[in-house]
């Protein structure tokens, strides 16, 4: 490399692949120091919050599900929680169990998609799942079978696998029968083995030596691993209910992104998603999931974002077990939905999307018309953490050539399974190096 090259090096990736949505990244290095890292989210905003205004309080589960084809259940769940909160309705345990079962389906399919088709190629040195499939077809088959188990669960409980239609404020339009769910037991038992094999497989990958220090934020429930319920806690003492979210989380616009950046007021960057969930809720996992995690080299908490793929695999295993457990004790909710009468007020709700905490808040008029809506998706909450990881990762790995650095930067972004479409309301990689 000539001295001129050392002064200014530019790495460029047209658009980030294997992420959901459109974005780019710029890194500027000056004299061995990273001066700027920017995750550019150029996918245009879709103004969902504005189009919810004036709609009926019964509509958010179906409208907001359209924000994402990968995690519609998260949108539906957070939406119904917020509306039920506004209307002063609490659903019973049978509705809650069915919501959790549907959510298990989403975690299984979303995590299987990310682990096998989007993230594993990074660790094994392939450009795509297609190349990966040529080398390890059995692994890709396993991933697709696992994903299908999640899709089938969503189809039976939610009416269809993408943008389920069976979720309503108060519960479900129709509760599946016991026999419909029992038909899922055998495929889920096969999925349980596939999920265990997945944890072993990804546990054997090589992970860059890297740790971060973000404040971990996730839901925490008295009994269950958090999915659809719990309080928002952090590893530094935060412990709040949904109504307090906006007192603690501050969103701001930055010039380079069509997604809002979120920080914890007076505390700064935080991180939500599988690593935070796992580290704050390890003792809520099943013994089988904890053992699999241990055998795959994880401790009770995890601070290496590159190991998020292992945590996702552990969560997938947990979700399959949990689905089997819910089906085992299933009693259809009767009626399938609680009556929910509209009233004027403000309601807040959240749940743990596969990518992290998803918050909704609605203000209703007395006839149930939505006057105001706020949606805070996990990817916008994690943007600052992603940029911080990139800055520190690049600074520690300036010895890598541009190609290797680009590869690992993209991998570092995919650690977060970013859903750019959800966040816009994201990756061209551009590294500029100056001596």
């Amino acid at each position, binding site marked *: 490399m000539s001295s001129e090259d050392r002064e200014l090096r530019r790495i460029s990736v047209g658009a980030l692949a294997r992420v*959901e949505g459109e974005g780019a990244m710029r890194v500027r290095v000056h004299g061995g120091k990273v001066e700027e890292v920017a995750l550019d989210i150029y996918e245009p905003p879709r103004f969902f919050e504005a189009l919810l205004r004036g709609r009926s309080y019964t509509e958010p589960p179906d409208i907001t599900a359209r924000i994402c*084809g990968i995690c519609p259940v998260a949108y539906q769940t957070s939406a119904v929680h917020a509306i039920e909160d506004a209307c002063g309705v609490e659903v019973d345990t049978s509705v809650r169990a069915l919501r959790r079962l549907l959510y298990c389906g989403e975690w299984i399919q979303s995590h299987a998609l990310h682990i096998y088709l989007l993230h594993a190629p990074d660790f094994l040195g392939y450009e795509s799942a*297609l190349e990966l499939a040529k080398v390890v077809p059995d692994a890709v088959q396993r991933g697709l079978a696992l994903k299908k188990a999640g899709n089938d669960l969503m189809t039976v409980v939610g009416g269809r*696998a993408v943008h389920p239609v069976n979720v309503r404020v108060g519960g479900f339009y129709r509760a599946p029968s016991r026999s419909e769910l029992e038909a899922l037991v055998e495929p889920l038992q096969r999925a349980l083995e596939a999920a265990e094999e997945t944890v072993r497989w990804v546990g054997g990958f090589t992970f860059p030596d890297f740790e971060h220090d973000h404040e971990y934020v996730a839901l925490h429930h008295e009994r269950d691993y958090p999915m659809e319920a719990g309080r928002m806690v952090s590893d530094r003492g935060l412990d709040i209910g949904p109504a307090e979210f906006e007192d603690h989380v501050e969103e701001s616009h930055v010039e380079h992104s069509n997604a809002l950046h979120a920080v914890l007021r007076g505390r700064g960057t935080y991180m939500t998603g599988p690593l935070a969930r796992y580290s704050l809720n390890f003792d809520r996992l099943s013994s089988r999931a904890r053992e699999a995690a241990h055998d795959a080299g994880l401790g009770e908490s995890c601070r290496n974002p590159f190991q998020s793929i292992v945590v996702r695999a552990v969560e997938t295993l947990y979700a399959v077990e949990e689905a089997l457990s819910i089906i085992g004790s299933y009693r259809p909710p009767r009626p399938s939905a609680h009556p929910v009468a509209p009233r004027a007020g403000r309601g807040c709700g959240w749940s743990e999307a596969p990518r992290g905490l998803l918050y909704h808040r609605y203000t209703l008029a007395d006839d149930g018309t939505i006057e105001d809506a706020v949606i805070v998706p996990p990817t916008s909450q994690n943007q600052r953490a992603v940029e911080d990881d990139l800055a520190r990762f690049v600074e520690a790995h300036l010895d890598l050539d541009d190609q290797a650095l680009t590869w690992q930067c993209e991998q570092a972004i995919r650690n977060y399974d970013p859903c750019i479409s959800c966040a816009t309301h994201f990756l061209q990689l551009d590294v500029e190096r100056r001596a």
Partner: protein
Amino acid sequence: MTRVVVAGLGNELRSDDGVGPAVMVRVARSARPGVTVLINAGEPADLLEAWRHADVAIVVDAMDAGLEPGTTRRIEAGAAAGGHVLADGTTLPGSASSHLLPLSNVVELARTLDALPGRLVIFGVQGGAFGYGEGLTPEVERAVERVAAEILEEVGAAFAP
């Protein structure tokens, strides 16, 4: 019994990109038992899953091959025909994401995983406009009936004794 899966890919909110779904609406009207009609298939892995149990699969997708709008191309890409979309067996470069995997790459992935139906017929329809908005341009609208008729003929042949 023969199992046929017919799929129309595309976004009906992006003008002529909606030609696949439009053809499926016509085909669904005349569908017979044993035929599964898919208007989009979620994301690419789901299309693969749908093919896994099919003897014959048919796909309609809009294309931009620089031809006259409404021009159709018919490609045999099943296992029996070698399992390639592009004649030289390459796949299309481009960004793959959770929402987007070029059809040639889906076929290649299916071939690699031994999940390619014996027969796979792909109809490509050259679009004239791919901007925001519903509705097809007149040339592509006319192609819809033509392609639907061809597909129904293929389906009929699949069930012929």
